[in-house]
């Protein structure tokens, strides 16, 4: 009986999974492009009629034609980040630094389960660092510095055991800095110039956090 329930729920899960359409990853990238302003025509080669986005410039695929890199650093792009980016299940490198990306970081980016590096530094992103980033178990490099991010550093990120580099300097974060997990090794400069950030959290019998 239990196994039947399990089977049914598995089938349900399958059904709920988005259908892989004609150009599923390409469509996700097009969703990004649709909301962007691209005065330097960096995205000109993004032809939606192609079978996959693998020959688009600034997109790199693996041998299975799955997108593994998106390189749009310093490309004079402005606009919001599309939640659809979270669909790029094999993406390893999300390099969007040095543009004018604005608005919030979509929590859907937490679905990028293969992500190794997320470089969103040097943009105009605001709002909080999504708690969903705690799901990025492969993540080694997270650079969010030089934005307008606010709120506290999600405690959930201490579970990212592979995280090697974490830089949130030059934002508007508040609260205290976690000290567990990989946070034990990050230099204090990684948190610099966040005027409302209080320093490392103090741990005791009662969790101590001023909040924001």
């Amino acid at each position: 009986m239990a196994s039947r329930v399990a089977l049914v729920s598995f089938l349900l899960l399958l059904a709920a999974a988005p259908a892989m359409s004609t150009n599923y990853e390409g469509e996700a990238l097009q969703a990004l492009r649709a909301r962007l302003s691209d005065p330097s025509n960096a995205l000109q080669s993004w032809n939606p009629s192609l079978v996959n986005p693998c020959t688009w410039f600034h997109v790199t695929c693996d041998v299975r034609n799955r997108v593994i890199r998106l390189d749009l650093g310093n490309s004079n792009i402005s606009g919001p980040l599309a939640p659809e980016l979270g669909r790029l299940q094999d993406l390893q490198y999300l390099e969007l630094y040095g543009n004018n990306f604005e608005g919030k970081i979509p929590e859907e980016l937490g679905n990028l389960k293969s992500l190794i590096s997320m470089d969103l530094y040097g943009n105009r992103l605001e709002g909080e660092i999504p708690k969903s980033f705690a799901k990025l178990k492969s993540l080694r490099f997270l650079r969010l510095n030089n934005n307008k991010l606010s709120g506290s550093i999600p405690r959930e990120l201490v579970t990212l055991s592979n995280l090697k580099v974490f830089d949130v300097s030059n934002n508007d974060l508040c609260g205290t800095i976690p000290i567990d997990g990989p946070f034990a090794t990050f230099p204090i400069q990684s948190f610099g110039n966040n005027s409302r950030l209080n320093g490392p959290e103090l741990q005791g019998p009662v969790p101590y956090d001023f909040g924001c």
Partner: protein
Amino acid sequence: MENIQNNSMRLALSVLSTLLVTACGDASTNSEALLQIKSEFIDLEGVLSNWSLGGGDICSWNGVACLASRSHVLGLNLSGHGLSGSISSKMGSLVSLQTLDLSSNSLTGAIPPELGLLKNLRELFLYSNSLSGPIPPELGLLKKLKILRIGNNGLSGEIPPHLGSCTELEILGLASCQLNGTIPKEMGNLKHLKSLNLQNNRLGGLIPPELGGCGELQVLSAAANRLEGGIPSTVGGLNALQILNLMNNQLSGSIPIELGNLSSLTYLNLLGNRLSGAIPPELNQLRQLQILDLSDNDLSGAIDLSTRHLNSLEYLVLSKNSLHGGIDENLCPESASLRNLFLAENNLTGTMEGLLNCASLRSLDLSNNSLSGSIPSDIDRLANLVDLVLHNNSLVGVLPPQVGNMSDLEMLSVFHNGLTGEIPAEIGRLQRLTLLYLYENQMAGTIPRELTNCSRLEEIDFFGNHFTGPIPETMGRLENLVVLQLRQNELSGPIPPSLGYCRRLQALALADNQLSGALPRTLGFLAELRLVTLYNNSLEGPLPESVFRLKNLAIINFSHNRFAGSISPLLGSRALAKMDLTNNSFSGAIPPVLGEARNLTRLRLGRNLLSGTVPAEVGRLEGLGFLDLSSNNLTGGIPLELSECRQLTHLLLGGNRLTGTIPRWFGSLRSLGELDLSSNDFRGDVPAELGNCSGLLKISLHDNRLSGIIPPEMGRLTSLNVLALQRNHLSGPIPSAIQHCDKLYELRLSDNFLSGWIPPELGQLTELQVVLDLSRNHLSGGIPPSLGHLIKLERLDVSFNRLQGPIPPSLERLTSLHQLNLSNNLLQGPIPAALSNFPSSSFLGGNQLCGAPLASCTPLSGSDAKRLSNAQVAGITAAIAFVSAAVCLVLLYIIIRMWSDWREVSVSNSDGEEQEANQENKWRGDGSQKVGRRYWRVHSMCVAAASPDDKRSSTSEACILRQIMQVDKLVGASQVL
């Protein structure tokens, strides 16, 4: 207000002056006036030829109607007479005129203000000309005017409020001009107005509530303007109104409940506005309403309309709103007159069961909602349905077999739902079916052969399901088929040869299946075929020659199959725009005829077995953007003609056997973004002209025989992401100008003959991430401390060079680094602490480095001992010690043997023994004399250095330590031993 007063003043003045003029001209006859009018027309068809003084009584002139007394001209009707030219101001002198009809000509110029003098005028028709300029306010003087139709002209300016003085007006037509401004509130004075048509102008502002004064209004259309604000509730007071059309404006606010009072209304169209709020239930009172279109607004709430009340309703269009809730039975409680129901693009939920009473329905569009549940098995109660459109919902369950009973069905679109199960065989009964969209569902099973009974089918799209088994071999019975899209299923077996009978087929998409076998010869009959995509199947064999006959082929994608033989059958079409044959086994040459496909923008022939040269004819493809010939067996050079392909963005020729030099004209390919010439046999230098291709993102020239320097012009490629020049014969320094390529994330220069220092400017490439590989060159000098700025770098390899000096402490800042190779250089000094986590292999070989992971830099006993004390190298030390000990023992043994031999010789001098000793020496490859001391000197410094007294204990530490210094030499020696 002041404006209007001013205008009235001016109007009064101008009227006075005109009156004067007419008074003076009163003596002149109507005939003179008519001749003047004629003179300003251009009458190409000669319809006014009898308008002449000798032409008799003016009342007999064409188009002129007189009073019985023949004293006055009553009417002038020149409609549709092909007249051009302008309307004379003399028209104003025909004061007795009651009807003036100049409609449907090609008249230009302005409407003369003098028409305002025609105070007996009852009907004025100037519509459908090319008149321009404003509507003269003087028309407001025409107090008897009942009909004013001047639309479909180029009239501009505002609607003069003075028209509100024409209180007898019944019909006012100002549509399809370029009128701007607002609708004057004075329109509300037109108490007898029955029809007001202002549509298709540029009118803005609010709809004046005063319009409610037009109590006899039957038709009100102000569609396709720029009207704003709400719909005034006074419109609800227009009791006689039958047609209300306000579509395509910018009206906002809610729909006034008063519209429910319009008991005569048959047509209500508010589509394409910004109306919000709920649909007022009061609309249910509109018993006469036949057409209701509220689509493309921001309406929300539930649909609270019912055909129980709206019993005349035939069209109900509520698509493109934000309507919520379910479709309950109340909408269509019993068989009603409703024939067309469009509720697409809302947020409707629940099932579609509630609609099954709408037996008169012919078109039902519920697409793009959030409907759930299944398609009811008694869907066939909608027996008259022609179009059933349910796509983009969350419907589950099967496509019920009862669909087969809906014999009028022409369009069945259920794509992008969660439907499961098989296609019912009963579908074959739908003799009128033209379009069947099942794509993006979870349907499975085989495609029933009965489907091919639907002989009117034009479009089949089953993309993205789980259909298995073969494509029905009777497919050819669908003679009207235009589109066959079966992509991304699990279909197997061959492509049925009968497809050749589908003569109208334009798109054949069978990609992403498990199809096998050869391409049937009959495909050559599909003369209208434009698109064939067969990629990702297991199709094989040579292509049939007949395919060459397909002259309309524009898009071909056969990639990832097992096709073999020549590609020439695919080159019969000059319409070819995109061709992708990647990853097959095509062989033979690339046919020069390819150059005839002048529309070709994308050509991918990579990963095949093509041989011969790159044909010069490719250069005729001026629109070519993507050329991929990589991983074939191509030989020869890059033809000069290719320089004509100025649109090239991708040029991928890697993995062939191409020879010659990299042409300088590459510098003229200004659109180039990716250049891959890797793994060929190119010689000569890297042309400096490449620096002109400023859009280059990726350059792969690795694995060739390129020589010369890396041109400093590379520094002009400021967009460059990847530069791969490894495994060539490049020499000279690394140009410091490369610092300007500040978007580089991958830089590979390894396995060349590069010399000189590593330019400190490399430290400015702060986006370097994947790798910086300078290994296996002749680089000298120190590691520049600036490399410490490469904080994103994950791999750094400078091994096998001649780098000297210390490891700069700044490298400790490379926090992203997870592979480091500094080995086999001449580096010295301590390893920075933060690098101690890298394995010792990152540092060994030639270097004289110390500290973790190598031996500690702290001295132990002697200077040599420094590097030995660390436990981490104890294993290696032990191994080396063991080898050394063994060597030394062997040598000791030899010494002892020789010494004893020598002693023996000196005692007995046996020839045989001496010979043996010589042989032993020869075997050691050395030819040294049997004299012990000299032998040692040649073979081992360590033993030689040891005092003769220590010979017996040659495993001494000092000996081993020296040997560590020369690990390679010793290991080599021991192998020889």
